[in-house]
Every structure is written in structure tokens, then in C-alpha cells.
């Protein structure tokens, strides 16, 4: 594990407390304040099993550089109380330099892993302090303490606090300010943590956004104007963000009775000419596969965002894992070529989802976007995503000339056939999940079947995905091959090792299906070591790679399931010491 260094560029901290103590509110303010101060940041939340009112923790990492991963260790932990705090133990690696500040009034309840751990400790009597302030609350005290300890400029915190409480009125703001002030004052009595340097340079062009919001925005950017969906954790925020947003840009979201209805509605909307999407998580995606197969066979574009959570079955709904990969690739009945892409950061949720709309529409086939809980439900301060030119550009048909006949499934070189928008005279056709001839007439003949299978496969195989099939970074003859939310920790590890003997390259695949075989082979050329990193138990990504390319015999494999994140330090150790066998 990394030790805190003098030239700190990132600070990590946890604010925890029992139900109703407002730690998430305070965490959000902290992130906003850090953003205002010119820092980047990432905030994840963790909660007990209770629907509401259970213990919660805000896990923050603030930095003068963009943050791509959860930290290896925490600099500071503030617990407003110790109730069920041990529930978070796994998620909060601490060491002798960690500063832990607990509730002075309940010091006896301090859990063993804290008292027996190596960390430096302080105590604050949050309750008495907040009682002394009219309308004061412990979470605001903590906010002030944290701000002072990590060097967050007062005005930034103050501004964030005022923004957040604007609707609650002046009194609330004043009380919170007073609380923060008291917290700031007492910080001097606490063990010191590293401070973040005041950032230099450009502060403009930054966004505060969650991965789920980013996916929703990417979809709208790409042209999606029809969404049908059924709520499910951890995908619901995509829908809740998109619903009013779509209304504003002339689109619509329909809440369906279940996932069977959602996907079929989306296909219906898209058949009508309006780019369409649904979003779900594992159990919901399982219910959609029959209809996704219909979209393949009938050649209707549609985007399905799967925000993965721990599986199998209901699994661990609030935690992340990459274990829906196999399902996204292979769950459709029959030979059903489709697109699978995966964003590799919160910021990339915008790009990849937008791109997926473009791909689905260009190839008239479903595109599955594999996001996950770690991206979707985390909030981050990011550099504003670039504008890209990928939009829904569906090749449509026009009324044929006299004596000519429209063939919906005409055999073309690219495999893509012009798709008539209902309402176009002379192009009426029936979209069909039964095998058919080029006109669309059902046919069980061997020739028709083969021709249409070829055509559908050709569409996705021959498409030019450009350089977007993967993100590559680093230098060296060790290649770390990964995807999705594992990318962040790998990137950070590579950064840390850059210029050392262990300097390595990363290939993070954005395009998973069709497998970019040639591109991958080229990217791996000359690699002395290949290390595959994924967050599953059974090694789904490795199986997929093996099925598609020849990996070196000595390929190494780092494969752990959720719910804990893969951390940069894990990858560094791996590169330095090899996969334990």
C-alpha cells in the first residue's frame, strides 16, 4: 500500500454515521466545495441494508488531478457515531497514518478494528458542540473540521453550503455555517492530515456528474428521444435523470410494467423512427434477452444500458461487479450478432453511451452498454467531455420508383439495408423475428437463412469502429488488458509506475462485441507480459479473450469478484510481483 507522501496530489476521507446523521449531504457539499476550489474528486456512497435510516458512509477522494479510482488507503475517517461502523471495515483500508476522528461521547463504542488498528486518533464531541449552536448539526461540524484539515478554502466550502441549502432558507444556512466554523476551530486539536495544495491553472470546463447521469446525457446527445424502462438498482438514476431531461428536448420516457414491456416498447418506438433506449441491471437484462434477439432478427436499432451489480440472481444490488459480461455477449437465443460496449470511467459514460446510439442506429441492431454500479452511482468532478460527432444516423428508405419494389432486408455489401420509417408511402413492410427473405416474407429455406445470417453478421463485423475500440495508455512491454471500471485503478497504477523499470501499457477495451480481434492482436504485439484484469469470480473476460485471440501461454490473470473495488495498489503489486500462482 501507498504511504502518504509529501507531494500529496490526492486526499481520501470517509464520513460515516448512523441513519439521519446527514453524512451523505455533508459529503455532497464537500465534493461541491472541492470542485469550486478547483480540485477534482470522486465520491462513492456506502450504506447498510436498511432501505432508509441505516448507517451510511460518504467515501471521498479529492485531488488536483482527475480521479480515476478509489484510493488504496484513507487519510482521514470521521465517524459521527460508531453504530454499525464495522460494516464498512472492508471498504476502508486504513494504516498508521490514517487519522480517525470519532464521537467523544461514545468513545467506548469504538469498534475493535479501530481501537486495535494502527491509526492515529482524535475525538470530537459532535453532539455537545452541535447542541451549542441553534439549529446546529453534527455533520456540519465534521464538514468544517474536514475542510480545515485538508486545506479546503473556506470560501469554497461556504459557497457549496449556501448552494445546497438555498431552498431551506437563511436560517438553515446560518446554522450550518456556524457549525462548520466550530468544526474548523476544533480541527487544530486533531492529528494533522496531509493538505492538498491550492490548485493552479484552468478551473473552468469542469462538470460535477454521476456515471448514471453521464450515460443518460450521452444517450440524449446521441439522439435518443424515446425511453421505456422499469426501475432497478443501480440503474434507476439514469431514468430519473432522463425523464425530465427528455421532456425538455422533445422526447419522452414511459415507465413500463416490467422489463419485458420496457424493451418491447423501446423496440416499438425505434421501429417508428425514434432512437430508443432502455436501462436496467442484471435481473432486468435477463428478462430482455428474448426481445433483444427480436431486435437483432428484425434489425431494429435499440440501446440497452446494463448497470451491473453483484450477482448471481438478486445478488448484491448496491455493489459493483463485472459479472454480466457473459450475459451481454451471449444471452440471446440463436446466432444473434449485436454490439456490446463498455464505458471505462464516469466521464466516458457520456462518450460510450453516445457512441452506442450511433452504432446501434448505423448498424440497425441492438447495442448493450455495460456500465456498473461503481461508475453509475459515483459522483465525480471531471473535465467537461468533448463534443463528438456521433449521432443517430439511420439509413432510411424513400418511396421506390414506379415498378420497383422496396425490400426491407435487401442484401447489401455492408449488410445494412435502408429502413423505411412508417409513414413512407410504398415501403410498407412487416418487421419479423421469423427468418425471412430480403423482402421480409417469412422463410424457413436454407438459402434465405444463410443469406440473412451472413448479412446480419457482416453488418457488425465489417463496420469501422476506428480507434474507439479501446483506450490505450502507458509504455512498456508489459500490457495490462482490462475493461470498464477496472480501467481507473489500472491507469493510476500505470501512472505511478511510469518511468520506472515496471513501466507498463494498458489496453482498455471499449468495444467488446464484435470482438476487435485484429486490433487486439496488434495492440498486444511485442508484449512480454500480458496481465488481464477484471472484476468477476469466474474469469468471464479472460474466457472471452481466449475465445477470440491467441494469448501468450504465460498470460497472468487478476480476477476478483465484487463488492470491493479493485485498487491501484493491487495492480501495482501485480505488475511488480506477478500474479501469485
Amino acid at each position: 500500500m501507498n504511504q502518504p507522501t509529501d507531494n500529496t496530489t490526492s486526499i481520501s476521507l470517509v464520513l460515516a454515521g448512523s441513519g439521519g446523521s446527514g453524512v451523505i449531504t455533508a459529503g455532497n457539499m464537500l465534493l461541491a466545495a472541492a470542485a469550486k476550489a478547483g480540485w477534482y474528486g470522486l465520491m462513492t456512497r456506502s450504506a447498510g441494508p436498511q432501505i432508509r435510516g441505516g448507517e451510511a458512509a460518504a467515501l471521498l477522494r479529492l485531488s488536483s488531478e482527475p480521479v480515476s479510482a478509489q484510493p488504496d488507503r484513507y487519510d482521514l475517517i470521521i465517524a459521527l457515531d460508531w453504530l454499525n461502523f464495522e460494516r464498512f471495515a472492508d471498504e476502508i483500508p486504513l494504516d498508521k497514518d490514517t487519522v480517525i476522528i470519532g464521537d467523544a461521547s461514545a468513545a467506548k463504542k469504538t469498534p475493535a478494528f479501530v481501537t486495535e488498528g494502527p491509526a492515529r486518533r482524535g475525538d470530537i464531541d459532535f453532539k455537545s458542540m452541535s447542541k451549542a449552536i441553534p439549529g446546529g448539526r453534527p455533520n456540519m461540524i465534521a464538514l468544517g473540521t474536514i475542510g480545515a484539515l485538508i486545506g479546503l478554502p473556506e470560501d469554497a466550502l461556504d459557497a457549496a453550503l449556501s448552494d445546497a441549502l438555498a431552498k431551506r432558507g437563511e436560517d438553515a444556512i446560518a446554522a450550518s455555517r456556524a457549525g462548520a466554523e466550530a468544526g474548523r476551530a476544533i480541527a487544530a486539536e486533531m492529528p494533522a492530515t496531509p493538505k492538498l495544495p491550492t490548485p493552479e491553472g484552468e478551473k473552468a470546463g469542469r462538470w460535477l456528474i454521476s456515471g448514471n447521469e453521464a450515460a443518460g446525457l450521452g444517450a440524449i446527445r446521441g439522439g435518443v428521444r424515446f425511453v421505456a424502462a422499469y426501475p432497478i438498482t443501480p440503474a434507476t438514476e439514469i431514468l430519473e435523470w432522463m425523464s425530465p431531461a427528455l421532456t425538455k428536448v422533445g422526447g419522452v420516457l414511459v415507465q413500463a410494467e416490467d422489463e419485458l414491456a420496457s424493451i418491447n416498447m423501446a423496440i416499438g418506438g425505434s421501429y417508428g423512427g425514434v432512437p430508443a433506449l432502455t436501462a436496467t441491471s442484471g435481473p432486468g437484462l435477463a428478462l430482455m434477452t428474448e426481445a433483444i434477439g427480436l431486435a437483432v432478427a428484425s434489425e431494429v436499432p435499440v440501446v440497452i444500458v446494463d448497470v451491473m451489480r453483484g450477482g448471481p440472481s438478486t445478488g448484491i444490488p448496491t455493489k459493483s461487479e463485472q459479472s454480466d459480461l457473459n450475459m451481454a455477449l451471449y444471452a440471446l437465443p440463436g446466432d444473434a450478432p449485436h454490439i456490446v460496449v463498455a464505458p471505462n470511467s464516469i466521464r466516458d459514460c457520456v462518450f460510450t453511451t453516445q457512441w452506442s446510439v450511433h452504432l446501434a442506429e448505423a448498424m440497425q441492431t441492438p447495442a448493450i452498454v455495460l456500465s456498473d454500479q461503481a461508475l453509475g452511482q459515483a459522483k465525480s468532478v471531471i473535465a467537461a467531455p468533448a463534443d463528438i460527432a456521433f449521432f443517430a444516423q439511420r439509413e432510411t428508405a424513400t418511396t421506390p420508383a414506379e415498378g420497383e419494389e422496396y425490400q426491407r432486408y435487401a442484401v447489401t455489401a455492408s449488410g445494412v439495408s435502408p429502413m423505411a420509417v412508417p409513414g413512407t408511402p410504398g415501403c410498407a413492410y412487416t418487421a419479423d423475428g421469423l427468418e425471412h427473405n430480403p423482402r421480409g416474407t417469412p422463410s424457413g429455406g436454407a438459402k434465405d437463412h444463410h443469406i440473412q445470417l451472413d448479412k446480419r453478421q457482416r453488418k457488425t463485423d465489417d463496420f469501422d469502429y476506428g480507434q474507439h475500440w479501446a483506450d490505450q495508455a502507458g509504455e512498456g512491454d508489459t500490457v495490462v488488458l482490462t475493461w470498464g471500471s477496472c480501467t481507473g485503478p489500472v491507469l493510476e497504477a500505470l501512472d505511478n509506475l511510469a518511468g520506472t523499470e515496471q513501466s507498463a501499457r494498458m489496453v482498455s477495451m471499449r468495444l467488446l462485441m464484435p470482438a476487435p480481434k485484429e486490433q487486439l492482436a496488434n495492440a498486444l504485439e511485442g508484449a512480454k507480459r500480458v496481465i488481464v484484469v477484471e472484476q468477476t469470480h469466474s474469469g468471464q473476460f479472460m474466457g472471452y479473450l481466449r475465445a477470440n485471440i491467441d494469448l501468450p501461454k504465460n498470460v497472468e490473470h487478476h480476477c476478483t469478484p465484487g463488492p470491493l473495488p479493485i485498487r491501484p495498489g493491487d495492480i501495482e503489486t501485480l505488475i511488480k510481483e506477478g500474479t501469485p500462482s
Partner: protein
Amino acid sequence: MTAETALAPKHSPRDYKSDIKPVWCPGCGDYSVLGSITKAFSELNLDPENVAVISGIGCSSRIPAYTDCYGFHGVHGRSLPLAAGLKVARPDMTVLVASGDGDGFSIGGNHFMHACRRNVDLTYVVMDNRVYGMTKGQASPTTEPDWDNALTPGGSGISPFRPLVIALAAGANFIARGFSGDQNGTAKLLKEAIEHPGFSFVQILSPCVTFRPDQKTWKDDVHDAAVDPTDEIGRAARRLMTDDGFNTGVLYKGEREAFQPPIGEATATVADLEGKFAL
């Protein structure tokens, strides 16, 4: 959807028929239903390209390809959400949904209820032959409990589904029953159903000559229903709960507004949305 029915129709029923030969058995009731549908389209003066016929899987669900309108032959039981998606995205289209008693009431039963509630402007035509025709003769939800068949020998033992009262209870606004043996009468019902705003449900008794030859007596069983379709909903429930399943006509009509969120009317740009994230 207000058609100038007084004028001579622009298109004959034939104009809505494709040249694809149906897979149906000779004598199947669905031929006549196809005729009623095209007749209704013609009398409503609809342009074929502005009509979509959507279905699931079953003998009855084969109808889309036999029309010369836009169509979608989807998967088993999911015609209604497919159609709802289309209609919400394209309110300008006239959307007719064709289904069977298995497709619509067995695997598709949930969508049926929720389509009634949601009240998207669709016309839902269920060709009820009280059997799974396509899979060669098993009991459907509307099958008599003592009908012997290979899958449930001696009969399913389950009391039949009552689609019309379910539709009413679920919120449907237009409920009718027709008989395929009466092509003109059914066409008239369909015309009225298509013209009615919101979700309209038309059950058409359409015999399966192959697996239910006993249904040839239906022509004697059906009878006109003399009811006030705008009756108070409680009385309508009582009526539909206890009817004999063979009374035909429009059996209920309500006035609930159709579900159609605005689409295509932007009040902001994508850049405006992005602005909310910018610091």
C-alpha cells in the same frame, strides 16, 4: 383519426392486403378477421402507409404480413408494449394490434391489463379460438375446463378467463365482442374501435376448424347484445361478469383521456441540459 367516412373510400379493402398467402388452415376464422380489418381501414379512408399492424406469435398473430400496411410480427405475448412504444413515439400512425387468446391472455396477460390502464390509443383485436392453434392444440386461458387435449388430458380443470370484464376492471375504455362469421359486423366494430380515442379492446370469436371443430356451433351461439355501452361502470362490471361469452356488439364505452405525452416539442437544447452539470 377522424375519417371522412361519408366520402367514397380512397382505398379498397384489397389495397390493404399483401400478396403473401396465409399459412392458415382452410376454413380458419382468421381469414374473415383479416377481411374485417381491411374493410375497416378502407371505410376509415386510412392511407396504408399510416397504419401499422402489430402482433405477437400464433396463427392469429400472422396477420401483419398479410396486410400491406407497416407491420411488426414480434415475439410471443409482447405485441402490446411493442405497439405502445410505436404509438407513443409516432402518434400520427394508426396502430392496430392483433393477437390470440394464448398470446394475449396467457403469456401476454400482464401487458393486456397495463395497456388497459395506460390507455395509449391502440386498437387491440384478439382472435379468440379458445385454443393454442399454432402449437397444435393445447388449452388456452379461455378454453373450457373439461376440453380434452394431449397436454392436459381430460381438460385443464381451470375456470376460463373472462377477458372483457378484466379489461373493464383494468380500465379499458372501449370493449366489444365480435364473431368472425359476421365479417361486416366485425368490420363495423373495428371501425368504431379505431375511431375511439385511447385503448380499445375487441374480442373476436374466431373458430379454429382444425383443433376445435366443435366450434362450428358458434354461429348459432352468438347473438346481438342490446346494451347501453356508456352505462355506469359498476353496472357494466356486473353485466360483463355474468354474460354468456357470446353476446356481440360494443359492450362498454368510457371517456377517459388517451395517454399521449407530447413528443417532438423541445423547450431546451442539449447544451442547456449540459449546463446543469457545469461548475
